[in-house]
């Protein structure tokens, strides 16, 4: 395991939606190659926290440092350059319905990185092979199952060759039989050393893949521990209650 300096560092992050304080005071670090799983009850602010990491939601106060640059102080075009290094996968896949699969994957490399069509197409084909969908290149998103769409979404994010991948409940919108194929792809990714921050309800995945579990509740990160410790000896009462409910079901 190679644990070096932090890639992402969050300091006193606070986020309000109107008067609703969703994130109260978050301090955390993600190191290179780490896989972090964010778990906790719904409404805890997990997704908001993730979206604050790439400024899809603008933090109310505090800092988000990515490669030692404070994202909260950047202008939009500078932000665009940093966003391409942080891939994001959404609960609802968000594939572009008017483009076929290969076009979905090629769009950003061609428009942002100015790759040639051939280069982007070759990369896209390789990525599709990695997620097991090489035969779907010409299909349109609407003709794919949820699991297939999510694997394409992962390939699309990977096409930008990101340093970090953010996953926002990637399996929550899937039928149960499709959860496995998506988790498998994520597991492969983790094994290849990708730095990942994953918001998930899949405790099995968290247990086996995560380097660290962050338990969030009430706008704070309540616990940061190894999976081992979190699932066997949760320290806080909130975590104990949460685990009791989740593991029961």
């Amino acid at each position, binding site marked *: 395991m190679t644990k070096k300096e932090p890639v992402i560092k969050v300091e006193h992050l606070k986020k309000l939606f109107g008067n609703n304080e969703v994130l109260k005071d978050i301090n955390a670090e993600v190191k290179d190659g780490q896989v972090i799983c964010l778990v906790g009850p719904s409404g805890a602010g997990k997704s908001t926290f993730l979206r604050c990491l*790439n400024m*899809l939601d603008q933090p109310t106060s505090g800092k988000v440092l990515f490669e030692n640059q404070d994202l909260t102080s950047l202008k*939009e*075009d500078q932000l*665009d*350059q940093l*966003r*391409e*290094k*942080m*891939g*994001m996968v*959404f609960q*609802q896949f*968000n*594939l*572009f*319905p*008017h*483009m076929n699969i290969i076009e979905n994957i090629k*769009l*950003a490399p061609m*428009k*942002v990185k100015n790759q040639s069509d051939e280069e982007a197409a070759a990369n896209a084909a390789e990525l599709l092979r990695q997620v097991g969908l090489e035969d779907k290149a010409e299909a*349109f998103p609407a003709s794919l199952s949820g699991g297939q769409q999510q694997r394409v*979404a992962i390939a*699309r*994010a990977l096409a*930008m060759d990101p340093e970090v991948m*953010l996953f926002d409940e990637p399996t929550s919108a899937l039928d149960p039989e499709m959860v496995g194929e998506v988790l498998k792809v994520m597991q492969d990714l983790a094994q290849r050393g990708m730095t990942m921050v994953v918001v998930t309800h899949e405790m099995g995945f968290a247990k086996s893949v995560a380097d660290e579990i962050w338990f969030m509740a009430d706008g704070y990160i309540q616990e940061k521990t190894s999976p081992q410790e979190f699932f066997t000896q949760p320290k806080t009462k909130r975590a104990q209650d949460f685990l009791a409910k989740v593991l029961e079901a």
Partner: protein
Amino acid sequence: MKKAWKWLESLIAVLLLLTLMPQKASAADDASASKATDHYLKKVKDKGEIVMGTSPDFPPYEFVQNINGKSKIVGMDVEVGHKIAHDLGVKLVVKTMDFDSLLVALETGKIDMVISGMTATPKRAQSVDFSDAYYRSGQALLIRKADKDKYHDYRSLNGKTIGAQTGSLQANLIKEQAKKAKLKTMDKTTDLVLALKTNKFDAVAVDTATSAAFAKNTDGIIAIPSGFKITSDGSAVAFHKGATSLVKAANKSIAAIKKQDLINQVYLPKAGKYLAGGKSKKEAKVSNSMWAYKDFFIAGVGYTLFISAISVVFGFLLGAILALMRLSHNQVAHTVATAYIEFVRGTPLMVQLLFIYFGLGLIINIPAMLSGIIAVSLNSAAYVAEVIRSGINSIAVGQTEASRSLGLSRFATMRYVIMPQAMKNIWPALGNEFVSLIKESSIVSVIGVKDLIYQSRIVQADTYRGVMPLVITMILYFIITFGLSSLMKVFERKMNHD
């Protein structure tokens, strides 16, 4: 306090200046007029042409004649115009527009003179200068032949409806003398006659020369004396207020016309020959008389298509820009776009068109056709902007987030992700807007642009047939709009293949 007063003072000064500006210009005119060395005559001579405005739906004064397949404005007034131009040693240019628009066009310098069977009333004389009268005509009423024994003059029309041209002497006569009759006005004499034939009116007031022409050429219509007491000064040529040099020149020509009795000896017979010539040709081929006017309709379709096509393109581009401005986070852009859209949607296209042609005409001279294209484009843009905005808003926010998270800029996201999807969603609504643009472009005929409506008016005036040209115009508009919506459907199907 003192500062506020000063501010107010300068505001009042600016307002005063603004209200004074037009008056100042006319005051200058008056001053030079007293010396009779105003610049109007010189300007006309420098140009080498004098522009005459007229409303060519008023035979035998002025009407359109199909001569060797070309439409030409002819009639007694045109001959008077030619005489004046000839005496000045310049070319005569005839510009056509609605009777109502003539004086405004004169005031704003679009034309140099009005010869359109216009009577020199004292009221009109307040805003323009008239020449001496060149023709004095009596007033008559047109009625249906079936009513021959019922009506004898305006007094027997109590409680009945009499039609007259909007803003005409006849309209005023009815208002003042035939108080017990109901007055209905329309822009075109041909429409008035059509309304008479279709029992909308019981009589139409026109001057005797016109009444004779219509009675002769329209089946079932006869002319009777009007019975109006007339103190009118006869038809005269109208010039811009203060254009004394031109008035003097015109009076010289008119004196010559009167001396030789040119109107009765030459001009009216010539106009009558045109009318009779058109008629006999028509009688020769009754079955396809509309076919003889095919060139008019073809030209009309051409103009309508041209104006519509350009307006669709510019309306769409400007609409897209406005939509993006309205959606932008820039407060200024948002406010400007919102204000524009609300204002343009909240005012009639007709007023916008007249404002651009006449209002802006005070500052910069925009030709009628260009004014029409500008007005229709600017108007359409406001509607297109709202359609595009609704299309953009219909795309799920996740699409933007996915695109931005990949590093695409706000613009690239709009260009490659949002717009293509939005266009597909709004395509039917856009088609709707384009179809109504084609139809609404017909408003440009008001300022004399020769579009399909304008041509159908001319054919109506020329053939004395009210309904047939309308039917043909309707069919032609339908072919154009149906063609467009079919084309839109082809593209829609193409997009759905994706």
